[in-house]
């Protein structure tokens, strides 16, 4: 009321009020002067907010390019700067981001193999092409499904964990402390994390390939009466080393970028817990988007090259 009265130059007077109401009004008296209470234009406000949003996005993009550049140079010069990386954290990070991710990735890829086997079997049966189930499952698991599923799980597990960890370290001034002690935050925190994921993800994918193919085998045995030997004989003919290697190379890129995005988001935290939560979520979304984008690029390139 005080606010509205001030804007409209109306004198507000309270009559017949008791002391407690007057004290209450005094306590919450509106502090602004009339000149500050200018009604803002709704449209201008919206446009201004949109402008600020795009400005923030563009700044964020440039910051990521800058971060990517630093990490790229550090990765290339890694063989010459091995002693600068904080390797003491690496075994624990490798176990946490690689070995401990194994049960869930194995289960998911096994189920994906089983599902694609069942779905494929239904179609192939109609054309009497039962034995080609081994081709379908083998190639789709090694080239696409296993690298993709493992990478998405790593984005949800490790990418988010890096963002939350480094974000919390920013909030508690631990990153500032590192800087003032003269330690390079990239060598100390970022590189061990990226390497732990980039080196563990191809191993995870390789193991998941086997389990996914076994999932397809179970589907084939139960729906198409294909024998174990028949399935693996066909798989041997259908699957080339190029299929497996292309999937592994792709997974390395996925892991490298997902870990990098997680670390970037974590180091971008400013303010408090709210920012940590937002950027952790954002790290997963951006990670999954980048995985799909890189996968599309790889698919196009490999098809063009005939691999």
């Amino acid at each position, binding site marked *: 009321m005080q606010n509205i009265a001030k804007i409209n130059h109306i004198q507000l007077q309270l009559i017949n009020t008791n002391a407690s109401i007057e004290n209450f009004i005094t306590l919450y008296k509106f502090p602004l002067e009339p000149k500050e209470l200018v009604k803002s234009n709704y449209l201008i406000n919206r446009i201004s907010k949109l402008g600020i949003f795009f400005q923030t996005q563009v700044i964020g993009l440039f910051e990521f390019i800058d971060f990517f550049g630093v990490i790229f140079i550090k990765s290339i010069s890694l063989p010459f700067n091995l002693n600068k990386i904080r390797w003491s954290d690496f075994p624990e990070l490798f176990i946490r981001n690689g070995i401990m991710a194994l049960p869930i990735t194995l289960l998911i890829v096994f189920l994906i193999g089983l599902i694609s086997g069942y779905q494929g079997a239904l179609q192939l049966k109609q054309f009497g092409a039962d034995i080609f189930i081994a081709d379908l499952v083998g190639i789709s698991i090694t080239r696409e499904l296993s690298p993709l599923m493992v990478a998405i799980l790593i984005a949800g597990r490790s990418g988010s964990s890096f963002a939350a960890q480094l974000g919390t370290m920013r909030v*508690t001034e631990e990153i*500032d*402390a590192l800087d003032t002690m003269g330690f390079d935050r990239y060598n100390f925190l970022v590189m061990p994390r990226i390497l732990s994921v980039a080196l563990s993800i191809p191993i995870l994918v390789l193991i998941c390939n086997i389990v996914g193919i076994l999932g397809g085998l179970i589907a084939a045995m139960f729906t198409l009466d294909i024998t174990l030997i028949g399935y693996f004989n066909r798989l041997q003919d259908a699957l080339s080393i190029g299929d497996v290697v292309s999937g592994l190379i792709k997974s390395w890129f996925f892991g490298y970028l997902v870990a990098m995005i997680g670390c970037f988001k974590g180091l971008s935290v400013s303010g408090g817990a709210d920012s940590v939560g937002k950027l952790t979520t954002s790290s997963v979304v951006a990670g999954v988007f980048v995985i799909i984008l890189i996968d599309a690029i790889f698919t196009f390139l490999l098809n063009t090259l005939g691999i």
Partner: protein
Amino acid sequence: MQDTIIVESLNVRYGDRVILENVNFSIKKGEIVLICGGSGCGKSSLMRQIIGLEQPYKGNIYINGLDILNCKATERNKILTQFGVLFQSGALFGSMTLAENMKLLLDSYTPLSEIEKKLMIEMKLNAVGLGSYGDFYPSEISGGMKKRAALARAITLDPDILFFDEPASGLDPVTSAAIDSLILNINKVLGTTMFIVSHDLASIFRIADRIIMLDKSVKGILAIGTPDTLRNMKENPLVFNFFNRIA
């Protein structure tokens, strides 16, 4: 006496917002200088510029004679080993024990043997009254102990200069007084220059050799002098009221 820190024509801005304008002062070796002022006057920002966490909009900062804003990375890293920082939250590394927090610095910057490092860590932890807590993680100790542990880490390399951001914040008066005693003791024994950001009056009068008071209205230094000078500065009501307020 030689100047350890020199700040010349320092301007600090965040976007269009001017925080500090044309700030000039110097701190002599072994001096305890307290930076105080109301909230949002730029105390912590000033410290962050001096310790190199943020780049000023304009101005020069010299530490031990070295222009830290325009020096080579190797020279800057050398300077970083000459000062310790106690952050408001302590900023101990949560994944390491207190001893490991300190060993990190000894591993990186000293050629000491493992036995010597262990001895050094014990000495520093004993100095802050945490001799038996070396194997504890920061999450396992209280707020006051964290501050003391962070102080032990800050003095691990026997720095020439110590920076403190609100050392008394979140502490009870007894623990706060204990931290002040530690600061005085370190200054007396090691001759360390102290740059302390605080607005805790009890602390200010207990330990300060000199006070620099910042204020939003002038976007810089409002007053500078000894605690007694500022407490009796009746000609400036802002300063007089600040130092004579009843806590």
